[in-house]
């Protein structure tokens, strides 16, 4: 692994910001002293185990829990019939027809995928709860199954949710520019019949869980959990449970990875809440690995059908049109937001001005989808990268030059896309040059010959992606005009405590993103103290008053929203500290500076108050002041500057920042077997100002590893009967140490002009690895019949199929000239 340090382009003054400050989180984590949700215990707690459906689609005729209840040590059960009485269906983000969907904490009347929770049992031990769950007798009447989203749209397909009148949950046409004219003026049109983005997710190592306590006196639940978006969970749960949001206290601490997959645990949390109240005891739930794979948070599978790309003779790509079928799985837990989120990056990194995308989302008898690292943009960026490489492949353009020519250029920044999104900054061609340099692009042809001499097919590929961060939740109104969400926010409090301790609370729920460290770096620079003097509380607690409606850790935003809130609160505190010092010294506030842990008169540094004195005055020594001393306690809500998008035109700025990644790789394919290996890999990342470069690089590496896994190994594959074939880590292979290629990383910094610190949200990486591996395989197989790569997931057997039958893939692509359009 090599890190190439490049010169930063930022001119910001830096102290701790920009340094590789060691992580505050590490001490407890390397000693096994972290506190993850399953580590939390309460006296008398019961363990919850879900009874899950063995059928992908069936009516529930009856549920009999009596045998389970008779087992000594079983505390109680919960069934869908009780849930339907005690709660209302979850609020749906979708408009009609998806908006009619009835979704509860447990199945009511029907199951729609294998692994769906139909009942819950609570017992005195984990083992007993499992035993008791097996004693719950459920009678099912199996129904016909549909697992392919394209088939679920056909007439006569089994209908999952009768109340929706069919399997479509969302449909919308997204069109900008003059698409017909672009095609009329095109010199070439490249047509691709189908492209398929596969179903997988990032499988955090820690599973979902909660410890839920109910206080009968106050009617309040305390939910200690690893849900990564409490702001979302509470607005889903409170109305369903018919209580105010104040009755649901969320507490998180260490979270063992999330990647978006821990956003949609609200149905399970409701079941825990109902049982904690019913049984009058704390209820502990930790998912098992097979439960997670079968039922939680699959990434969106997506088809791009009948795609056409308009290209001029000189290689300028002027437009594309396609028909998308998105597979949401059986329920809408965060969907249909995937139906709009892709449009944050509608033209990818390219200058396409004419785009038409006909988006249909359907339900199938598979696990529900929810966000997964790169959520919805990854699918779309894979599509844009695929069509760029297929255009080059079919029309004979150089892939590098085609990108260089069609990329949005640095002098166009900030760049408004055809749908009104604003790419804040970036230098895509320079980043491309850098990654080509890292991978040794000028030697590729020699290496190809050398590999051929060993009987291997060498391929080179590029994946250029955007990581759009800091959502404008107003985009939700583009899929449902009646929604009343817009903008975004995050909260921080910073206070100076009685002995001078600087204490920071956040609304975020980090899962490895190092918020304790980076927040402390920002605070220390503003207050002029050491980073070790700043104490950042880990995790989220509704009692801290440091959260707002969108609080959580998701969608590449902490460096903007979280640190924006930290900066705002710290500047308020700094002002209070200077005010108090000026009251003590009876001098103008402007004469005070904060440095070295003191508030002092800049021109007379001996007149200095230690932070301890400042903290003590309002807290414990406040007599004699003619006016109130400032409280040494600040709360700031950061609100990014957004407008509500234009719903008619589907136009507006949907995210505040656009980090950029260009990945490149070299693969070697065995032409006899289809087995391939990534022999070289490079990644360039630009996320604006880096608070802590080492932490940024860690995120780049993690995103790369996820992409390699998705491209080569990881797939939630279902058979036609709705059985998940990869329900655990035994069958679902995630990359191990031996799977990882040599990696070189580098960063450039183009500060965002729109954010408080010049930072951009980052960490998702848009699946650059998936794109570049697909491109490298297509390049390698040029010598064996030139198949195009039409699937995001290419295990060895699929490569073997392409080697043996390149004509199958060739049949999916066609080039026509101007007359044919």
């Amino acid at each position, binding site marked *: 692994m090599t890190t190439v340090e490049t010169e930063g382009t930022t001119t910001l003054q830096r102290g701790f910001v920009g340094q590789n400050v060691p992580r505050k989180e590490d001490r*407890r984590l390397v000693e096994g002293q972290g506190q993850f949700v*399953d580590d939390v*215990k309460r006296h008398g707690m019961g363990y919850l185990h879900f009874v899950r459906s063995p059928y992908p689609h069936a009516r529930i005729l009856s549920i009999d829990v009596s045998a389970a209840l008779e087992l000594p040590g079983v505390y109680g059960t919960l069934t869908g019939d009780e849930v339907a009485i005690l709660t209302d269906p979850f609020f749906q983000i979708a408009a009609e027809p998806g908006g009619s969907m009835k979704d509860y904490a447990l199945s009511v009347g029907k199951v729609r995928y294998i692994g769906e929770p139909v009942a819950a049992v609570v017992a005195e*031990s984990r083992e007993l709860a499992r035993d008791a769950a097996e004693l719950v007798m459920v009678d099912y009447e199996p129904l016909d199954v549909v697992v392919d989203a394209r088939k679920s749209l056909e007439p006569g397909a089994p209908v999952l949710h009768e109340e929706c009148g069919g399997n479509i949950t969302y449909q919308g046409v997204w069109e900008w520019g003059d698409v017909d004219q672009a095609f009329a003026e095109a010199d070439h049109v490249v047509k691709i019949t189908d492209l398929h983005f596969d179903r997988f997710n990032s*499988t955090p*190592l820690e599973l979902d869980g909660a410890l839920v306590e109910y206080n009968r006196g106050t009617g309040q639940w305390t939910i200690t959990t690893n849900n990564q978006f409490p702001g979302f969970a509470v607005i889903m749960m409170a109305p369903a449970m018919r209580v105010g949001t104040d009755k649901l206290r969320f507490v998180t601490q260490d979270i063992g*990875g999330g990647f978006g997959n821990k956003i949609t645990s609200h149905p399970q949390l409701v079941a825990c809440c109902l049982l904690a109240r019913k049984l009058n005891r704390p209820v502990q739930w930790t998912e098992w690995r097979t439960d997670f794979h079968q039922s939680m948070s699959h990434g969106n599978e997506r088809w791009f059908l009948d795609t056409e790309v308009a290209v001029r003779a000189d290689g300028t790509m002027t437009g594309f049109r396609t028909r998308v079928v998105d597979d949401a799985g059986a329920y809408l837990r965060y969907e249909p937001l995937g139906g709009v989120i892709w449009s944050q990056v509608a033209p990818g990194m390219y200058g396409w001005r004419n785009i038409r995308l006909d988006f249909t989302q359907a339900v199938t008898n598979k696990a529900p989808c929810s966000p997964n690292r790169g959520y919805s943009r990854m699918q779309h960026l894979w599509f844009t990268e695929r069509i760029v490489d297929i255009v080059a492949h079919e029309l004979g353009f150089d892939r590098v030059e085609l990108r260089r020519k069609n990329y949005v250029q640095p002098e166009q920044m900030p760049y408004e896309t055809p749908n009104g999104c604003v790419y804040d900054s970036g230098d895509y061609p320079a980043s491309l040059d850098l990654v080509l340099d890292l991978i040794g692009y000028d030697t590729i042809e020699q290496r190809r010959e050398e590999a051929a001499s060993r009987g291997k097919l060498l391929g080179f590929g590029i994946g250029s992606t955007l990581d759009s961060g800091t959502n404008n939740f107003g985009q939700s109104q583009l899929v449902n005009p009646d929604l009343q969400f817009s903008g975004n926010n995050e909260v921080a409090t910073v206070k100076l405590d009685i002995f001078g301790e600087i204490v920071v609370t956040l609304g975020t729920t980090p899962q490895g993103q190092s918020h304790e460290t980076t927040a402390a770096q920002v605070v220390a620079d503003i207050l002029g103290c050491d980073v070790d003097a700043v104490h950042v509380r880990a995790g989220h607690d509704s009692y801290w008053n440091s959260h707002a409606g969108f609080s959580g850790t998701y969608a590449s935003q902490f460096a903007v929203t979280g640190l924006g809130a930290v900066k705002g609160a710290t500047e308020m505190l700094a002002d209070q500290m200077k005010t108090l010092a000026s009251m003590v010294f009876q001098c103008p506030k402007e004469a005070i500076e904060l440095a070295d842990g003191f508030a002092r008169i800049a021109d007379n540094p001996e007149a200095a108050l230690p932070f301890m004195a400042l903290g003590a005055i309002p807290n414990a020594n406040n007599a004699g002041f003619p006016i109130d001393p400032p409280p040494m306690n600040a709360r700031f809500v950061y609100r990014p500057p957004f407008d509500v998008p234009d719903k008619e035109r589907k136009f507006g700025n949907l995210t505040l920042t656009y980090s950029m990644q260009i990945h490149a790789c070299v693969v070697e394919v065995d032409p006899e077997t289809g087995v391939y290996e990534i022999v070289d890999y490079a990644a360039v990342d630009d996320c604006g100002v880096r608070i802590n470069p080492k932490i940024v690089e*860690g995120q780049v590496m993690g995103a790369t590893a996820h992409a390699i896994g998705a491209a080569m190994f990881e797939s939630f594959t279902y058979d036609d009967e709705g059985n998940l074939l990869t329900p655990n*880590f035994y069958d679902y292979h995630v990359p191990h140490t031996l799977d990882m290629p040599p990696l070189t990383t580098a960063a450039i910094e183009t500060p965002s002009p729109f954010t408080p610190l010049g930072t951009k949200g980052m960490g998702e990486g848009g699946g650059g690895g998936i794109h570049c591996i697909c491109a490298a395989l297509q390049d390698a197989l040029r010598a064996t019949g030139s198949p195009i790569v039409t699937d995001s997931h290419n295990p060895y057997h699929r490569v073997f199929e392409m080697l043996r039958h390149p004509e199958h893939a060739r049949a999916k692509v066609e080039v026509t000239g101007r007359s044919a359009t």
Partner: protein
Amino acid sequence: MSALPSTSMFVDVRVNGERYEREVPARRLLVHFLRDDLDLTGTHIGCDTGSCGACTVHLDGVPVKSCSVLAVQAHGASITTVEGLAGDEQTPLQRAFSEHHALQCGYCTPGMIMSATALLEQNPTPTEDEVKVALQGNICRCTGYWNIVEAVMAAGKGSA
């Protein structure tokens, strides 16, 4: 012999130097015994299939996945968990994990460190390939392993 099979057994183990005597259900996994009965929650669980290595501990000096060992099988054994590594100071490997940013969420870290500690005890200056082979039974979903391999090699005696 009694007519009915016994469902629990007496277990006498030494964990991190401390002796524990407990009557445990015969089917209880060692990892649940450590976590739930002894409250040593540094040892984690990430799968149902012995695939992820988050639960790795040393059983009489040998790294094992404690989800694949029954608590009763540990009777008479000496166990080291991640909580037992650091004394007044962290081990060089623990420090190297921090210095090389070899952890993000930290959930796999105890298992990683236990596997790598066992490697370094056997082979203080492993090659990169030897480190990768030794850690192939431990899954990390945050780091992509590059920094983990780097940290283990740095903690090896040869690289100081």
